[in-house]
C-alpha cells in the first residue's frame, strides 16, 4: 500500500512537471512537436541519472520507486509521442516527413540522454566493464 502511494505521488509530480515544461516550449512550424520532444529527452536524462544513482546504492528502494518509477516515468510520455506522429502522418506528405524526423530525433536524443544520465549517475557496469 505504501508503494502504491509512493508511485502515485511521484507520478503526479512528474505529470504536472511535464505539463508546465510543455507549456514553456513552443510548437514549431509545420507542427513539429518540440514540446513533447523536450519533455521526453529531459525525462530520459533524469531517469538515467536516478537509475545510475540507484544501482550505486546511493538512493534507497522507496526513493527509487517514487522518483525513478513515478516521477521520471510520469514526466515522459509515449502516447502523446505516438499520437502526434500519427496525426502528422495522416495530414500530408510534408507532415509524414516531419513525423519521420521527429521520431528519429526523439529516439537518438532520448537514447543519448539516458546514457549520459547513467554515466553521470555512475552506473557501475558502465565504468567497470572490461576493456
Amino acid at each position, binding site marked *: 500500500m505504501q508503494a502504491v502511494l509512493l508511485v502515485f505521488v511521484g*507520478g*503526479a509530480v512528474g505529470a504536472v512537471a511535464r505539463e508546465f515544461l510543455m507549456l514553456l516550449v513552443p510548437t514549431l512550424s509545420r507542427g513539429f512537436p518540440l514540446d513533447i520532444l523536450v519533455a521526453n529527452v529531459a525525462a530520459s536524462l533524469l531517469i538515467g541519472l536516478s537509475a545510475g544513482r540507484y544501482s550505486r546504492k546511493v538512493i534507497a528502494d522507496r526513493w527509487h520507486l517514487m522518483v525513478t518509477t513515478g516521477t521520471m516515468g*510520469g514526466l515522459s510520455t*509515449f502516447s502523446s509521442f505516438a*499520437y502526434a506522429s*500519427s496525426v502528422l502522418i495522416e495530414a500530408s506528405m510534408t507532415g509524414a516527413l516531419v513525423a519521420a524526423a521527429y521520431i528519429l530525433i526523439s529516439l537518438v536524443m532520448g537514447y543519448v540522454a539516458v546514457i549520459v544520465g547513467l554515466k553521470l549517475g555512475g552506473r557501475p557496469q558502465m565504468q567497470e566493464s572490461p576493456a
Partner: protein
Amino acid sequence: MKPVDVIWVGLGGGLGSVLRWWVGRLVGERYKGHFPWGTFLINISGSLVIGYLSVLFQVDWHNRHGHGMVLNAFVLTGVLGGYTTFSSMQLDAAGLAAKQHARLAASYLFLSVAAGLLAALAGAALARVQG
C-alpha cells in the same frame, strides 16, 4: 491552463503511473526473458487509447490547452501521459545494450515506435467508424 487543470493532471498522472507500475509488475512476474514486454505493452495500449479518445472527443492537438476540458487534462495528459513512458523505454534499451544485447535493444525501440504508431492510427480509425 486553469489552476484546477493542474490538479486534474496531477491526479491523472498519479493514477496512470500506478497503473503502469502494476502492469509492469504483472508482466515481469510472468515473463522472465530479455524483451521488455511490460513497457512495450503499456506503451502500445496507451497509444491505442489516446488515438481513440482524441478522435472520439475531437481534441484539437494544436489547441489542446485552449478548452480547459477535464477529459483533456485528466485523461489524455494525466492518466495516459503517466501510464505510458518514453524514458523507461530508453532506459530498457540502454540496459539491454549494456548486457551485450545491442541488436535486441534496437529492435525493441523500432518495434515500439512502429506498433505505437499503428495503435494510435487504429484507435483513431476505430473512433471514426463509430462516430
